[in-house]
């Protein structure tokens, strides 16, 4: 049994923002997720740790249906992600419904994935205008505020390639925030950055945590995890082998694999 994940139906408990139950996913014969249960409370920060290939990124990508699970389900804000339950079956939702669900969940990628042919401003304004129907002037004003928040106001007309990696990742965070998501997913947000640029991106994420943003973060930055996380989760071989308060998971891991990994990266 995996620790730290309260069972559904706990009397009086507030329903978590994210509930993952029995999640399984294989790529060919390789089992990447092997029955994952996880809860993320609204306004909390969960850090996913583990060796590469342990299923962290796949778990994250299942949360906004970039991957289809083979079994189990993910629930965000009370809705099953990507499916509708009817007559004992989970029917995959039509594209428009999946798109609507995704607007609640922002994602930040390891490789930033800014749109290179659009300016910083156009990157930020595209989705609010096209998807949420925000009037263009409002979206532009909001983009300015968000850029100020990540310390990049004034760079609206720059193209992504004119920015450093750290700046690009901060724009990517602002772009995700522009959709006013209830949950932010970070897939190794600093792994593609030069060491000296890691700090500026972590600083922005730290500010978001202080502001009460719900986040799930895949990272190898153990010190950062200890500082911002409300919950730390250690995956190995597609299973959660350790989870709980960061101090317990990071400093006193009971699992042998977790202990070996953490002593190697610390």
């Amino acid at each position, binding site marked *: 049994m995996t620790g730290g994940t309260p069972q559904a139906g706990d009397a009086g408990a507030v329903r978590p923002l994210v509930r993952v139950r029995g999640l399984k996913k294989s790529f060919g014969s390789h089992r990447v997720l092997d029955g994952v249960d996880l809860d993320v409370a609204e306004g909390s920060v969960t850090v996913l740790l583990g060796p590469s290939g342990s299923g962290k990124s796949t778990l994250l990508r299942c949360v906004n249906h970039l991957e289809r699970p083979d079994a189990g389900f993910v629930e965000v804000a009370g809705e099953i992600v990507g499916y509708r339950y009817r007559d004992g079956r989970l029917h995959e939702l039509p*594209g428009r419904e999946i798109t609507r669900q*995704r607007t609640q*969940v922002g994602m930040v990628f390891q490789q930033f*994935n800014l*749109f290179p*042919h659009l300016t910083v401003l156009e990157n930020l304004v595209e989705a609010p205008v*096209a998807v949420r129907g925000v009037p263009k002037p409002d979206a532009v004003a909001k983009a300015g505020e968000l850029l100020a928040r990540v310390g990049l106001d004034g760079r609206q007309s720059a193209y992504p*390639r004119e920015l450093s990696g750290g700046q690009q990742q901060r724009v990517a965070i602002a772009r995700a925030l522009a959709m006013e998501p209830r949950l932010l*997913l970070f897939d190794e947000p600093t792994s593609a950055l030069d060491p000296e640029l890691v700090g500026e991106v972590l600083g922005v994420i730290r500010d978001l945590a202080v502001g009460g943003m719900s986040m799930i973060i895949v990272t190898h930055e153990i010190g950062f995890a200890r500082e911002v996380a409300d919950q730390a989760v250690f995956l190995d071989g597609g299973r959660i082998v350790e989870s709980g308060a960061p101090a317990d998971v990071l400093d006193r891991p009971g699992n042998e694999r977790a202990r070996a990994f953490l002593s190697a990266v610390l």
Partner: protein
Amino acid sequence: MTSDVSERTALPPAPADEHLLTARLVAPHRPGLWISAAILLVLAAMAVHTLVTNRRFQWPTVRGYFFERSILHGLELTIWLTAAVLVTGYVIGTAVAAARLSDNPVLKSLGFGFVWLIRSVPMLVQLLFWYELASLYPKLSLGIPFGPEFASFKTAHLFGGILAAYVALSLDVAAFSAEIVRGGILSVPAGQVEAAQALGLGRTRIFRRIVLPQAMPAIVPASGNLLIGMLKATSIVSVIAVQDLLYSAQLIYNANFQIIPLLLVATLWYIVLTTVLSIGQYFVERHYARGTNRRGDGFARLFRRNLPLFNRAGLAAGGGS
């Protein structure tokens, strides 16, 4: 380098630093560059000389027929046939590319089969096939597949030379453009689509706004090639007596036996059209270079870089880099 150190004792003393700091930089002598340039210039001069002085080219005759009414009619047909074929071909080709990239196994296989078949058959054979369709299918009818028919018509009246050319060339362009478009779409990193999906953008919006603009830099140069190739390939329709630019020239020289001058007339017009298309391609490419470092090359600068002989600054810049 290490061998230099051991020889250094035998060399004269190294010059003082202040001499090195004030010394002028001298480029290495490159006699090969000068010799090859001289040889090529002589060859080019010979080519121009023979073009001008060989009376058998009959330039006055070329000039006389250049704006001949039937030539201009042929030119007009060549231009609009190329345009119609390109537009139709690219519409079908984009659909075939979408089919090949779809998850639907039937569409995927049919798309592959179409490209395979059309690319396998020589264009001339395709052209003759459509031209001779009447002998294969004397009658075409509209109706339910394998069921009753509502209307039918004779193909003999349907497939004249121009329509046969239009259909055959359009299908050819469709097969080749499908691969160009598919390659362009595949060149866009998967992360771009995922980022757009994560933002909640819909499928059509993602294709139109995110994928296509990034695919265009890969699609445009290859399409320019295809377009220019097709412009000249339309001359193949002369075999089924469609009066395009080349066939119009042939009709005249069949009557007056001025073969070379009339072929030159057609050639010069093809050169004019290709030049116009190349310039157009340049501007389209520049439009889609948004956000890359390939932007900001003015047309004049591009011209100077490719023909530095006409501009000494360009030559210096080219030699320096």
